[in-house]
């Protein structure tokens, strides 16, 4: 039940924050959000890290690898994009 409450409240926070993201940043928003959804990595760490259940461990290890691609790749590529969004001074005019 608490989980459901957290889910709904997080959705409200999300709407509140994300609707104000300008169109110009929608691609970095997607790739950044993608990296955040790699949070499954945490779940993968728990399942991969356990002894005694080989199937769970290997499924978890595979999940961990895939989720890490998402996390590392997602944050890095978002940073690469955001680095490019700069405000440049206008070039000097001839007249």
């Amino acid at each position: 039940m608490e989980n459901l409450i957290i889910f709904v409240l997080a959705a409200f926070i999300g709407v509140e924050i994300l609707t104000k993201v300008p169109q110009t940043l929608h691609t970095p928003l997607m790739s950044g959000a993608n990296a955040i959804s790699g949070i499954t990595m945490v779940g993968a760490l728990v399942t991969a890290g356990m002894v005694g259940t080989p199937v769970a461990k290997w499924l978890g290890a595979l999940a961990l690898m895939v989720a890490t691609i998402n996390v590392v790749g997602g944050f890095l590529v978002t940073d690469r994009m955001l680095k490019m969004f700069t405000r440049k001074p206008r070039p000097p005019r001839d007249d």
Partner: protein
Amino acid sequence: MYTVIALAYLVSACLFILGLKRLQSPVTARRGNQMAALGMLVAVIATLFLYEILTPVEMIAATVVGGGIGAVLARRVEMTSMPELVAVFNGFGGLASALVASAEVARYFSETPAAAEAVTGGAPPLAPLTLTLAVTVAASVLIGTVTFSGSFVAFAKLKGLVSGQPAQFLGMRALTVLLLLGVAAAIGLILYGAYVFAEDSAFLMGGLLGLGGLALILGIFLVIPIGGADMPVVVALLNSYSGLAAAATGFVLDNIVLIISGTLVGVSGLMLTRIMCDAMNRSLWNVLLGGFGGADDDDGPDVEGTTGGTVRETSPADTAILLTYAEQVVIIPGYGMAVAQAQHQVHELAEVLEARGVTVKYGIHPVAGRMPGHMNVLLAEANVSYDQLYEMDEINPEFPNTDVSLVIGANDVVNPAARTKKGSPIYGMPILDADASDTVVVLKRSLRPGYSGVENDLFYNDNTRMLFGDAKESVGELTTEVKALG
């Protein structure tokens, strides 16, 4: 012990929220992304240290390999291929969630409750296999797997490995309905299997495998009928699914930080999906049913000049004169600019014009390109200052004061038929009012209609000039001509 972990998760959830909030402005966005990354680090470290995870070798290997692949992908990717990369990442996110949920279920198969307590180290004990848990597992596997296979179809379409045309065959919808029924049956089997698990575990196993397999096919069937230019909607929606899959996994593991971050991502994707649909004046349902458009189809709408007008062709030299003596020029980029990789040439032209005192602005339609914000990223890559990039609502009032609108590889988003022609497939779609400017110059390879298959009335207007050719070459020639004017 668990309190410390919960606190660490709370910290990382807060960092995610604050990080996303900083994406509200390009000034703070980079810092925001770094905060989110820090949040991830906190969550991972807390999990590692506090659960006393026992088999580090496999985990280190998995992390290093995964991290390496991620870093290489992030560094190597061309900005024009960003939609493909985002699609792939969506797919991985979904896959990871489905795998984690499966791994959690696998524990029930190989552990007796007593053994579980003895061997799991600091890992959380197994919750009883309730119906609620079964529902969340089913949701996680279903959403995660559909996201995975759907994303890779989207990737293949974006990459051009599969035709971007909406693919449909006879009985496809019936087959999709059958698949959905199969999915429902598999979920029923999972619930029943959880109920009788102690006596017979085969039902749960069968249900899960069935659900995984069906979901894999379903993901393909859901994306394949959708055409290339509707990919912004698809990519945004799959982005949302990948978040929802993580949230569902959070329910399975009873893990707060997974629920919060998964939900944030889910909301983000849904919001983008809605913006994209609104910008095309189509319902999400209409997009998902697919089959819209098909510019290269022979059986598409009448390609002959339905407006019956004539087209006025122009040359780079004439256009250069127009541009040089303009006070304000608005550049309208579309997918054609991305295909031609012309963004750097466009920026060079803009700089040359600005040096001659012309005000240059960019008007960007929400669905220009193949994913939300696609044009903005390309132009940012070409060093265009972000304060020159205008959204549709900001730029539309400017057109009456604009001397020249330069349409580069865009089509449907400037078609006045959207305003005037009832019954046109694009009627009601909000467009950039380029036709309100004094002169419109359209850079295009041919007169072929855009994605919607609708003839573009703009091309036949009295104040429109067509500059045929590859966008990159044409823009390059324009720059040379402007420079030659001294």
